[in-house]
């Protein structure tokens, strides 16, 4: 991490500065929606960063990653519905359940490769989606409104929008930092090796399955955390956040920003939501522009925005 004055580092620095100043801006112009919008961006960026860990660094293209958003969210929603409001109970439990489910899905899915892996994660994602749809006690597909946010015994007031925003931002930065430590550690090297050439990894003595599974579980847990935040942000959770198209959105965010790049998912999330906002402002038929744009990114900018900024082509 050399703080060289490259275009890419300047953009990242400006982006972070902008994220830091969002609440100030919202205060000055008296518009809380900006804060809401950016809280959402930051939360989704956490989810995208977690997907990037398995997809960008580990080569595991999960088409069911949005499921963990729902699992984390539903744990908060269900516990709140049952009267358990303490964040000290809700949050660890939500993360634990996300991790457990990721473990089971990973255990079964990681036996497959390539498109088979994409499709089996999709299948598990859809199964969890339909579990959500059949939760009659918790609103089924109508979703569940969360009337009170997680309570941290006065240590942290999540109902204060500015506090909540900075808390999410802190967690995003922590996630990115964690990713950075992780991918450069021995564990990270093993994961990247498995992505690059799994056969060779076995030949030099790596039992890669356990490392890939661990990575899968870590990513699921972090995405579960994003789900916890999302539920607290929207005061609402429904199966819709787990639909396969949502998993597709997450993939698009990661690739748009730049796979296997630390800040790529953040850049991608901002760009994705900004594009949606700008294009839908231009025409009702905005997807007729957005669709070919995706195609163009695949064809001409394989490293995503981050790759364009860095001016190098990634594999």
């Amino acid at each position: 991490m050399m703080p060289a004055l490259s275009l890419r580092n300047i953009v990242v620095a400006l982006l972070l500065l902008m994220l830091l100043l969002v609440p100030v801006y919202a205060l000055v112009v008296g518009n809380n929606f900006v804060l809401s919008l950016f809280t959402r961006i930051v939360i989704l960026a956490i989810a995208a960063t977690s997907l990037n860990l398995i997809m960008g660094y580990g080569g595991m293209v999960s088409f069911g990653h949005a499921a963990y958003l729902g699992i984390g969210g539903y744990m908060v929603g269900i516990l709140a519905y049952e009267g358990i409001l303490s964040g000290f109970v809700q949050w660890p439990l939500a993360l634990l359940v996300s991790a457990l489910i990721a473990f089971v899905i990973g255990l079964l899915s990681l036996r497959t490769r390539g498109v088979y892996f994409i499709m089996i994660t999709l299948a598990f994602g859809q199964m969890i989606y339909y579990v959500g749809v059949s939760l009659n006690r918790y609103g089924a597909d109508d979703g569940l409104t969360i009337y009170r946010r997680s309570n941290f015994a006065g240590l942290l007031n999540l109902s204060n929008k500015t506090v909540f925003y900075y808390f999410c931002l802190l967690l995003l930065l922590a996630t990115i930092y964690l990713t950075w430590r992780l991918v450069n550690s021995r564990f990270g090297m093993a994961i990247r090796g498995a992505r690059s050439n799994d056969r060779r990894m076995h030949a030099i003595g790596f039992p890669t399955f356990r490392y890939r599974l661990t990575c899968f579980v870590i990513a699921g847990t972090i995405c579960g955390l994003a789900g916890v935040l999302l539920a607290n942000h929207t005061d609402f959770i429904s199966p819709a956040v787990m639909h396969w198209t949502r998993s597709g959105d997450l993939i698009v965010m990661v690739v748009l920003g730049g796979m296997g790049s630390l800040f790529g998912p953040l850049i991608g999330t901002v760009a994705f939501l900004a594009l949606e906002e700008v294009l839908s402002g231009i025409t009702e038929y905005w997807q007729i522009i957005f669709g070919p744009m995706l195609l163009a990114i695949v064809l001409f900018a394989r490293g995503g925005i981050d790759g364009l900024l860095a001016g190098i082509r990634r594999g």
Partner: protein
Amino acid sequence: MADALLRVAELTKRFGGVIASEGVALDVADGELHAIIGPNGAGKTTLIGQLTGEIAPDSGRIYFAGQDITALPTHQRSAIGMARSFQITSLFLDMTVLDNVALAVQAHAGHSFRFWTPARSERALRAPAQAALARVGAADRGNVVVADLSHGEHRQIEIAMALATRPRLLLLDEPMAGMGPEESARLVNLLRELKKEYTILLIEHDMEAVFALADRISVLVYGRVIATGTPAAIRVNPEVIQAYLGEQQAVTGHG
């Protein structure tokens, strides 16, 4: 004869109706350089696949240092000291040379559930990797991304990675494939050096190299070992000459 480090007994593998290995028996003595030769389609690749654990044999057993490893998964064979280089270069193309070799060191430096310390600054990984690179004469190539290397250099790195796992046995699958004469000659010299420290099972097409290096040679034809012996014995073995007539005029032929 010294104790066999690797012993293969009655190894048989069929793919559908095609017999790839039929009752293969093989002894690689500790310290020797044992070469396997055979015409195309003789089942060399299938044999090495079974030795490394990527292909499960239908029947037969494989012993390494006295231990039955027939059912052992690939990564554990590496752990007990079997290292392999690939015929078709199989490296981590998007990483640097040193990263590649360091990974091989890491594989044998305990488990990799270490999440925090940057692996690239661990001397315990980098120093042995650098040593392995130096051993194959690529000490100055450490920071080059593998994809940018030449074919010959890829072959060097293949061997460096195998060495970095601190093996007792090197399984070298056609290390000279696709090399020019000059590069081949350098590699022969390298192997001659390595031979002093490692037991080597060499599968190779380059007859000149094989006969120059090998202590013993086994000849594989249609999945069977038809002969095993010193280069001198193999050279005059009528069965071997017979088997090779279609492919080369004589086993001793230059080139």
